């Protein structure tokens, strides 16, 4: 029997606010000394009163709008009760039945096909403390406790591990465009859980779901889902039942492992948070937030197709990162040849970024400086290959391309006398080849050109050198 995977995703995103969700401790916890960004509110001391961070609510509404959600008119917070040392209060303030955003969707593209993934809800909660497990004890750093955390829950509309990966990539792109999160999975700013079940292809019933927790990279999402789908398929083919379990992804072993969850599964006993009055979200507020949204990746991609004549896949490539799209546009405004710039940027700059594992926002040179380089090629001062090596240097030092050309003497030799001298030397050094040429073997011309380029370290202006070589050979032939 052929099976089909049914996958839903829950993605937790740390919001880029300056302060925490319910107190004014700094939310910029990365690299901070343990337990230095903590106060009685985020520690849940008796008698303290949490107050909602307006920015976090706005960021969540922004995200909801970008994901085509409806925005609640009335929302509230609830207590999710469980005991674990990463939760100082014994409950997490979250949203249960009245989330800020609901009923949205996100389009992804897999194998040239657009797939619409419905978004069930986007809600706001607080992050937990960080635990460090050692042999027989655990250390706790409460800095992260209370940092705004947004949860984005999809409907089980995802059908393959690759779709899951594309969904996450698209989500990250949108979150970064909005500027609401770094969405950096490696640093834990975006964390993902997936639930997956199998069913006979074409069937509409749902199989038993297995939850996969702790997936912290795009690669692992795919690997973990592939592994889990394979495992369930084998069970079903053997006529066995899939049990409803929670597993974690063990990246070292490359397998999923069962997690013990009986202590705090299912029974969270949610109830309305009595310390936080509900939110009535006016349509004026939503409209204001809507008006402040930046151009989103899909819209930008479409505009790049119509405005700059890029193909759909080219437009997507350049708009995945907002910084890349901005750089491209800034370049086009200085040098109106989008196709050429697209190839330079996605070819050379993307490669340099890939080699060094860096991103566009850390680029050391400006669009102006990059266009100077392209102009140097156009004017014939340098050739394409020299330009690539200059770009490499600009990439590591940020230096001006004209200065690099000057400093390193990289300009093409366009001096006729100098080139004639080189040509004469080449012909003198290769009398046999010259004889063959004069005897009618014209293809030897390419050999001489190669020698001229070699003698000049590739810096001979190719058009001029070719013209001068032709003239010189014609002279010798007619003599």
């Amino acid at each position, binding site marked *: 029997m052929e099976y089909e995977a049914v996958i839903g995703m829950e993605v937790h995103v740390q919001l880029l606010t300056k302060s925490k969700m319910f107190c004014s401790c700094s939310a910029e916890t990365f690299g901070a000394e343990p*337990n230095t960004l903590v106060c009685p509110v985020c520690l849940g001391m008796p008698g303290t009163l949490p107050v909602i961070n307006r920015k976090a609510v706005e960021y969540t509404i922004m995200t909801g709008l970008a994901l085509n959600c409806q925005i609640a008119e009335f929302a509230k917070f609830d207590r999710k009760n469980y005991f674990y040392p990463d939760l100082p209060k014994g409950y997490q303030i979250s949203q249960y039945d009245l989330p800020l955003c609901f009923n949205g969707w996100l389009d992804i593209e897999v194998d040239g096909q657009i797939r619409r993934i419905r978004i069930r809800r986007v809600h706001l909660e607080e992050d937990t403390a960080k635990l460090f497990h050692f042999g027989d*004890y655990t250390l706790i750093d409460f800095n992260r406790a209370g940092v705004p955390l947004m949860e984005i829950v999809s409907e089980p509309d995802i059908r393959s591990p690759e779709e899951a990966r594309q969904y996450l990539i698209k989500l990250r792109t949108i979150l970064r465009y909005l500027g609401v999160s770094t969405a950096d999975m490696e640093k834990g700013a975006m964390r993902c859980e997936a639930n997956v079940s199998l069913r006979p292809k074409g069937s509409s019933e749902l199989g038993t779901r297995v939850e996969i927790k702790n997936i912290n990279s795009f690669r692992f999402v795919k690997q973990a889902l592939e592994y889990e789908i394979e495992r369930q398929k084998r069970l079903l083919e053997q006529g066995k039942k899939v049990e409803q379990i929670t597993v974690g992804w063990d990246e070292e072993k490359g397998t999923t492992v069962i997690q013990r969850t009986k202590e705090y599964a299912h029974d969270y006993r949610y109830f*309305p948070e009595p310390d936080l009055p509900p939110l009535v979200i006016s349509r004026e507020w939503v409209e204001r937030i809507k008006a402040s949204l930046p151009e989103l990746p899909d819209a930008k991609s479409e505009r790049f197709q119509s405005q700059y004549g890029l193909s759909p896949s080219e437009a997507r490539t350049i708009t995945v990162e907002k910084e890349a799209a901005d750089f491209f546009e800034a370049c086009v405004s200085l040098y109106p040849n989008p196709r050429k710039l697209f190839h330079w940027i996605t070819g050379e700059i993307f490669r340099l970024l890939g080699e060094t594992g860096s991103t566009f926002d850390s680029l050391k040179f400006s669009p102006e400086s990059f266009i100077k380089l392209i102009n140097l090629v156009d004017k014939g001062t340098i050739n394409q290959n020299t330009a690539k090596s200059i770009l490499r240097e600009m990439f590591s030092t940020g230096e001006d391309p004209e200065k690099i050309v000057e400093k390193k003497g990289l300009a093409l030799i366009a001096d006729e006398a100098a080139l004639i001298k080189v040509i004469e030397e080449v012909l003198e050094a290769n009398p046999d080849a010259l004889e063959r040429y004069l005897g009618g073997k014209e293809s030897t011309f390419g050999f001489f050109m190669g020698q001229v380029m070699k003698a000049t370290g590739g810096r001979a202006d190719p058009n001029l050198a070719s013209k001068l070589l032709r003239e010189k050979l014609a002279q010798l032939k007619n003599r």
Partner: protein
Amino acid sequence: MAITREEVEHIAELAKLYLTEEEKEKMQRQLSAILDYFAMLQEIDTSLIPPTATVLPLRNVMREDTPAPSFDRDKILANAPQKVEGYVKVKVVLE
């Protein structure tokens, strides 16, 4: 009894309480009495009344996103039974 012995044990486990057999018995009796009392409220027709999330007349109490200094770490850790290099130390939570 409105509540079973198993439910009492389950709730105790969620609350991380370890009850003796007598305590379980006592809890079952007391919790049942409370639930019976609340059962009287169930008789009222509330189908036309929206659920109450709060009894306060307040709405939209929010603060601006402005960070302020946190507490001294010494104060924060003062109640921790054990601490190591600025961390709170507890017995292992994952076996």
